[in-house]
């Protein structure tokens, strides 16, 4: 079947569908190599669409026998922590009068976090948001922050799927996982 994926959202929505179809149409593929390929293509997807950057590879490099679930742990930690950050930002944007200085601190932290796991889109949008913040452009901030929230949500979903698949595939050797 041919799918024209026109937006990230569509892609992510369709992906599970794809997986489902894939599994049902080609049951014999539901084996290690098939999953690997899926995993690889998911990852490629994430990179191609700019959700992740090479910093993510760094995370994967850190996973090994002594720390077999490292990536998942970090990602989970990130989303937990960043959700809290974002709640703070939300609040800071609501309060009157706006304390842009304080807001900037939150943003800096969020940006640092995002960049540390390779969450490229989020990081970039955070940068823009910080610019608006420094200009004290509330409107710009609100719009930009909305984008950050969206990126956050989408990335979370995508990474959850990815990690889920990763778990299914089981201990995978680095080569096949990293290949994309």
């Amino acid at each position, binding site marked *: 079947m041919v799918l024209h994926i026109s937006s990230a959202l569509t892609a992510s929505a369709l992906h599970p569908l794809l997986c489902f179809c894939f599994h049902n149409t080609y049951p014999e593929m539901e084996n290690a190599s098939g999953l690997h390929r899926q995993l690889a293509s998911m990852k490629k997807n994430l990179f191609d669409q700019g959700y992740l950057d090479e*910093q993510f590879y*760094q*995370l994967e*490099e*850190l996973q090994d026998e002594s*720390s077999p679930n*490292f990536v998942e*742990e*970090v990602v989970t*930690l*990130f989303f937990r*922590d*960043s959700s809290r950050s974002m709640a703070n930002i939300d609040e800071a944007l609501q309060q009157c009068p706006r304390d842009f200085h304080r807001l900037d*601190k939150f943003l*800096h*932290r969020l*940006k*640092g*976090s995002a*960049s*540390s*796991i*390779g969450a490229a889109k989020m990081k970039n949008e955070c940068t823009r948001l910080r610019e608006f913040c420094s200009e004290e452009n509330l409107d710009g901030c609100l719009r930009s922050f909305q984008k950050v929230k969206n990126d956050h949500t989408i990335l979370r979903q995508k990474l959850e799927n990815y990690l889920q698949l990763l778990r299914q595939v089981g201990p995978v050797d680095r080569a096949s996982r990293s290949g994309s």
Partner: protein
Amino acid sequence: MTEFPAGLRVLLVDDDPTCLKILDRMLRKCLYDVTTCSRAAVALSILREKKGWFDLVLSDVYMPDMDGFKLLEHIGLEMDLPVIMMSADDHKDVVMKGVTHGACDYIIKPVRMESLKNIWQHVVRKKRNELKELENSGSVEEDDKHKRSLDDGDNASSGCVGNWKNAKRKKEGKDEEEEEMVEEHDDSSNSKKPRVVWSVDLHQQFVTAVNQLGVDKAVPKKILELMNVAGLTRENVASHLQKYRLYLRRVSVPQHHSRFDAHFASAQEVTYNSIGSVSGYDFQALAASTQLLPQNIAALHSGPRSATNTGMGVSAIDQIGFLSSAGSCYPRVSSKGATPQTGSVKALSNSSNLKGMDNHVPNFDIIGEHRENKTQDWKLQNVNLPYQSGQNLGHGQSTIDCRSSLMGNQDSTSTAKNGFNGNAGTVTKNIISTRSDIDMEKRECIVQHKTNLVENCNRVNYDGITDLSYQDILFEDNIITNELMNVVRKQQQEGIGQVDNEFNFNPPV
């Protein structure tokens, strides 16, 4: 402990749990012994409790309870450990702040494994530097503790070891006028004696006194009396004198010596005087304008070296040269008043242009970000490299990897691919003549020490660049910097030839 650097004891401080986890893992993968904490206050208490235990501190800049720079200061004050700062913030001024507060490196987040693999070099370098200081000052001690027990005057270590720490402790103070004396009473087990910061002014006084007495005949006691500086001890002077003598020996160049001196004697030569002051001024300005690597600063400093062994008025250049070469004692170079900078700048830049030792052309661009075009090098950089002894320091030798976060961005244009090998050397070469007996070793040591601020700086082999003290160059005045930049650029466009005479030691006018 297994093979070094495995087991290196690192204290990691970062309030972001994600970053903390990642960094922790990275450091462990490097086989370092990691202790983490997410609060600066906690970090300090850990450091205090386990004094002497840690080798290195890796800290984030922005933390809720305490500014990373404050932490940096505390650590410098109390423990004298190498500290590496990290931040997602790559703004030049923040990086600069790291430099001036004495961080030995500044890593931009997101951090990659490669950045952490080599952090051990900062530990080694620091220890080496301290050892060298001890050796140079004549002390035989290799142990800080021993050093402490020596009360005697000729022990130079007290004056200078870890002086850069003092320098780093200095806030971005604007007190360029005052001599800077910092007495630090450290009650840690690594406690050192009170340290003196030999500012340009102070050194100038010292040199004046020495010249008055005659370099060969000067004794610390008399120098001290002449200088009449409160709080300065005979020990401080003694150690400084020792270094100074070493320096003079090193830079002495017989054939040009007298002419240069003669020239100096005239001392009214705006050029020379201003060179001196400009040197001090320049690099400050330069430093201000760019994330000037200490090496560069030093290089700038040492500019046209005067080789005066006699009691001739040692110009500021000399002093600065001395300051920059002598090792870690000269953190501060205060601007000595920007008098005829124009002339000197011209002199410097022109002379550097003149002496095109082509094989030495460094690609090193100090200004980095300020460069307007590739070819428009900050000519003053040609004045660097006091120790350029005509050897082609070429590519392999002094590759300073300016990917250093110090430069503020990972794709900095100011990469000193070839280190600053040579142009400065060119100038100095012409001015002073071949100095083939340069103490390469010392230089190397200093350089290495200096390149703390540069990632992978272990690749830099040479370059009589200053020592860490220059980290502390206060790069405040961007305005001055810009002006200076303009002046220099203008000079560059003008003909170069005027200075020629001056630098070729024609008899003074």
